[in-house]
């Protein structure tokens, strides 16, 4: 089975490498979000004191105001050193994982339409290999894209303050778990759909709500109470939190909190893989 999966993944990865244009096009949206929204909106900038005011304030009150601002920044953004662009950029490194994973069904839909799936099904390979190779290929693609988003962000001025290689590894592990979870669900659903247009509709239906209810664009602390439960069950929030604190918070990286997020993601991902492969296996094997 390992041979089957690696052969099928080899195909997917070759296609990934051979269409750099596609890779770049998928990145346009997240890069626009962080470049335009992140730079222009500058939520953290609101907590800076204008120069002319600075000179007129008595030193005592200056200390009070700046410590109040720092407290507010820490409450909302986790650290007084974080600028809004870096905040959104790390959010987008998670969002692109969402986008890539949710559209992972596209390649299944095409393989189906082109009859490639039938060729695989007529071969003496495990049905799980077919699904697994698709899920893993999608996760690899998501990781590559996410890494590229982080690199682009660094080029655009992300203030990197990592909590060490292990923390960064944990951050990307969180993204990988998110991708595996979402891809297994989407692929299982897409295998069932007769019409690939439904898949595009489904992907668009999931993308924006998951992004806007997560902590990709704004801190959990300013999310209204009614929405916060959604934010907290949204797996994207958990993945982004781990990545963000590993890349931006330096010494104030909270290992325990990150492990909690990872545990949540691992459980969610295990559930999705089991449910997804159960349905995918049924679709590929049964009554058709």
């Amino acid at each position: 089975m390992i041979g089957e999966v690696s052969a099928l993944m080899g195909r997917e990865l070759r296609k990934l490498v051979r269409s750099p244009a596609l890779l770049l096009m998928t990145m346009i949206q997240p890069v626009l979000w962080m470049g335009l929204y992140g730079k222009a909106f500058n939520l953290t900038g609101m907590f800076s004191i204008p120069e002319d005011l600075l000179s007129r304030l008595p030193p005592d009150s200056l200390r009070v105001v700046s410590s109040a601002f720092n407290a507010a920044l820490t409450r909302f953004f986790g650290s007084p050193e974080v600028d809004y662009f870096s905040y959104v950029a790390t959010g987008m490194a998670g969002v692109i994982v969402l986008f890539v994973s949710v559209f992972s069904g596209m390649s299944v839909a095409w393989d189906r339409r082109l009859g490639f799936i039938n060729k695989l099904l007529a071969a003496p390979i495990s049905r799980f290999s077919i699904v697994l190779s698709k899920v893993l290929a999608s996760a690899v693609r998501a990781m590559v894209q996410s890494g590229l988003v982080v690199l682009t962000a660094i080029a655009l001025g992300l203030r990197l303050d990592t909590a060490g290689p292990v923390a960064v590894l944990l951050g990307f592990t969180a993204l990988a778990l998110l991708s595996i979870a979402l891809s297994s669900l989407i692929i299982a659903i897409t295998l069932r759909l007769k019409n690939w247009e439904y898949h595009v509709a489904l992907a668009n239906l999931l993308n924006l709500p998951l992004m806007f209810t997560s902590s990709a664009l704004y801190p959990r602390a300013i999310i209204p109470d009614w929405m916060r439960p959604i934010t907290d069950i949204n797996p994207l929030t958990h993945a982004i939190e781990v990545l963000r604190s590993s890349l931006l918070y330096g010494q104030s990286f909270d290992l325990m909190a990150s492990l909690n997020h990872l545990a949540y993601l691992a459980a969610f991902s295990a559930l999705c893989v089991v449910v997804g492969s159960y349905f995918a296996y049924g679709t590929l094997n049964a009554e058709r």
Partner: protein
Amino acid sequence: MKAVECSSLKKVYGNVVAVDGISFDVEEGEVFGLLGPNGAGKTTVINVLTTLIRPTSGVARVCGYDVLTQQGSVRRVIGLVPQDLTVDDELTGMENLRLQAALYHMPKDLARKRIEEVLEQIDLNEAIHRKVSTYSGGMRKRLELAGALIHRPKVLFLDEPTLGLDVQTRTSIWTYVKRLAREEGVTVFMTTHYMDEADANCDRVAIIDRGQIKAIDSPRALKSRFGYDAIELEVVQNGIDLKELLSNVSGLKGIESYNSRVLIKAEGGEEVLPEVLGRLISSGVTVNRVEMRKPTLDEVFMSLTGRRIRDEHSSKEEVLKQRFNIRRLRA
């Protein structure tokens, strides 16, 4: 052992009976054609035999293995060239073949050896290292054939192998199929709705219509059993009623006349023609031209079903898919 055995095979989708209890055998080493219009159930039969779908009832075996209970064994002994183009455009021909070999768990050096062997037969030469997206339709089909043969299948299934290809490419694909069948010793099971191709290339054909097998035999035997010879005359009637004049010629199965053209269906045209000519000339009809044609499988189909073979009802998706395939083939 039979290469393929079906008995009372049935497949029902909702309230549509796609395959309606068919039974037939295919001998080892045969080139066997399943012949019928679109929607007749041909692809459903292939899908059942290649384990892609489960039959509603009945038994089907490939090389003695049951398609329901011994799927793994069936899959190991078959090769499939589906109607769709399933080679991957983004990969090179060679990469496609390597992938195919990996799907059949072939060790690397065996794969290399087999790839070399099949490549010798399909004339792709240096194009094998180019991306498939640069290939012509015929090259893609040939690559597809090579892929399906890489693991030395005992039975090769071809679903509409020449659909959408131009005449010249069709001929060359057939040359390849027949050569491969002969040299590799595989049984070929194919579907087509091109009657002329089945006639020229199959050892035996089964004519299938609306899920049922109407007849099964060699093309030659079918034609002599079900097809009538066609005699076409160009005459000047001189006011004589031809239908009445010829009505009692023995072996005459039908007569139609359009102005000066007369079409006659006959059994044993060689005997009927002199008799017809004799009667016409002796009663004063001027005969300007005579032509006799032996029957084709088209006519066999017509006499079996009362209809011409033509594209019948197909779903929208099927039609789109077919157009899409043809576009890719011509790209």
